């Protein structure tokens, strides 16, 4: 009887998460585009062959991973600093905490367009500053070598507060006595960070890492609005590529193949990260 109360929620989640995956698996084995008159026709895995030989797919996969790893790495570092700061007691902490939360609460598209203006050449403030210091025009959003870094800035700005709060929650579970005892034993405050705080924070770091890596791997809003994937598709993410295939090229079969492909790559990446974590634990154990 009580189990029945679970049913509506599970059904809805199953419908919205499960049905698409099954549908994509099916679509990826069919040609379904304007060429076929938007009718699905089995094509014996031609989509998958195309995916494996699609340079743009692999380039996007590398770009998406690079974006995810660099963004999340920076976010963790900055978030740790913010969490340590907010964990201390000082006047006005509540207001500052609300101010740091604000970037996270705003819609991504709003500030994606904001960043586009900030990085604008030649009128944006960054270019103005560069000119003031006598630097060359940076062309931040039209130089394929550096545009992706601008998208990293946008992502770090927006999602760092989220990780900071998770780490803050972790910090608040560490009992004050531990630090007390450490000090009585003659430990230096700085050493406490590496000997107590970071080891005990590990599960929260892992949680934030896993969650954010998966989300950053699916980055879409920020890229679509800030750069549209350009210049020269240098910032295009896998999600954006599959979106373009579906909505611009109207090739639903291939779009679905890209999504399943991305999902498989993400799973592999998660397994890899997990294995590295396990490995490092074993290493640590061996050192003790």
């Amino acid at each position, binding site marked *: 009887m009580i189990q029945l109360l679970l049913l509506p929620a599970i059904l809805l989640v199953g419908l*919205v998460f499960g049905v698409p995956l099954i549908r994509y698996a099916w679509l990826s084995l069919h040609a379904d585009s304007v060429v076929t008159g938007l009718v699905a026709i089995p094509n014996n895995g031609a989509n998958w062959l195309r995916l494996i030989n699609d340079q743009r797919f692999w380039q996007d996969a590398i770009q998406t991973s690079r974006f995810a790893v660099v963004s999340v790495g920076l976010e963790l570092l900055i978030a740790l600093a913010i969490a340590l700061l907010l964990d201390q007691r000082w006047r006005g902490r509540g207001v500052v905490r609300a101010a740091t939360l604000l970037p996270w609460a705003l819609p991504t598209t709003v*500030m994606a*367009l904001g960043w586009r203006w900030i990085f604008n050449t030649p009128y944006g403030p960054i270019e103005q500053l560069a000119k003031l210091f006598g630097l060359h025009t940076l062309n931040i959003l039209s130089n394929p070598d550096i545009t992706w870094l601008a998208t990293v800035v946008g992502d770090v700005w927006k999602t760092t507060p989220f990780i900071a709060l998770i780490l*803050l929650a972790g910090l608040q579970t560490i009992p004050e006595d531990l630090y007390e005892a450490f000090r009585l034993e003659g430990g230096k405050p700085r050493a406490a960070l590496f000997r107590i705080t970071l080891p005990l924070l590990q599960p929260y770091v892992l*949680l934030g890492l896993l969650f954010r890596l998966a989300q950053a791997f699916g980055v879409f*809003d920020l890229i679509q*609005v800030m750069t549209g994937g350009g210049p020269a598709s240098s910032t295009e993410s896998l*999600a954006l590529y599959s979106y373009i295939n*579906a909505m611009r090229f109207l090739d639903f079969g291939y779009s679905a193949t890209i999504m399943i492909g991305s999902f498989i790559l993400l799973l592999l990446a998660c397994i890899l990260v997990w294995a590295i974590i396990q490995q490092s634990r074993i290493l640590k154990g061996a050192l003790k």
Partner: protein
Amino acid sequence: MIRTRNIWIIALLIWSLSPLFWQVYTSFCSPESLIQPLSNSGHRWTLDNYRQVLTADPPFWRYLLNSAIVGISSTSLTLLLAIPAAYSLSRIPAKLARLVKLLMLGAALFPYVLLFLALLELARSFNLGNNLLALSFPYAALSMPLAVLLLASAFKDLPVDLEEAAKLEGLGLWQRLRWVLIPLVGPATASTSILVFLFSWNEYPIALTWLSRSDLLTLPVAIARIAGTSVYSIPYGPYAAATVLGALPLLALVMIFQRQIVSGLTQGAVKG
């Protein structure tokens, strides 16, 4: 010691707020002064950008209203399904509950943007496009994992004796939920609601593909559409005004519900 801390606090505030202040500054600038920022013409400050945004067709408040409708209906639907599910999770055998929680965690980790194409097909076949209330279904499903996990841990914290006592008093399941249990998980419900509301207010890819009529757009889509209309010259002044107007309700929400947001996110971390 305290001085270095103040430097860090100031750095944090600059990092978080300066991009926003730049938007505020831009929104009050006339187009000419944006192009020549250092020139000192007399026409620097203007309210034209705001005037333009508020009198556009459809006017800007329409998008705020649409986002609010979607936010409220999605939050209600989520709570309606998540509260019974969370209660059930805290009462069923631990093994089954663990399995369901793992599934929910997997769904929460899934980059949901990959679902948009199939969801669009579903919307087309059930005729749900261009319908603000229909967006509640995908939004409730996408928020369900977080909502169920947060609420389940709140139900789990309630003492079992309490419910036993209510049962002895002759209260049925519905009455126990309505009069005893749900009031006690109030704080967790508030946290869940504000997080779900923020998610629905801000969601982009699904709203982008489900809505096409310009008077039905939610705020994120409306703002992105400004970017799409003219790739080469974006009307940054009016756009910045739109950003500021769009950020104000969220600023208010964050200020009012800061504690709920923080406890929602942190409870999710500690107990998830």
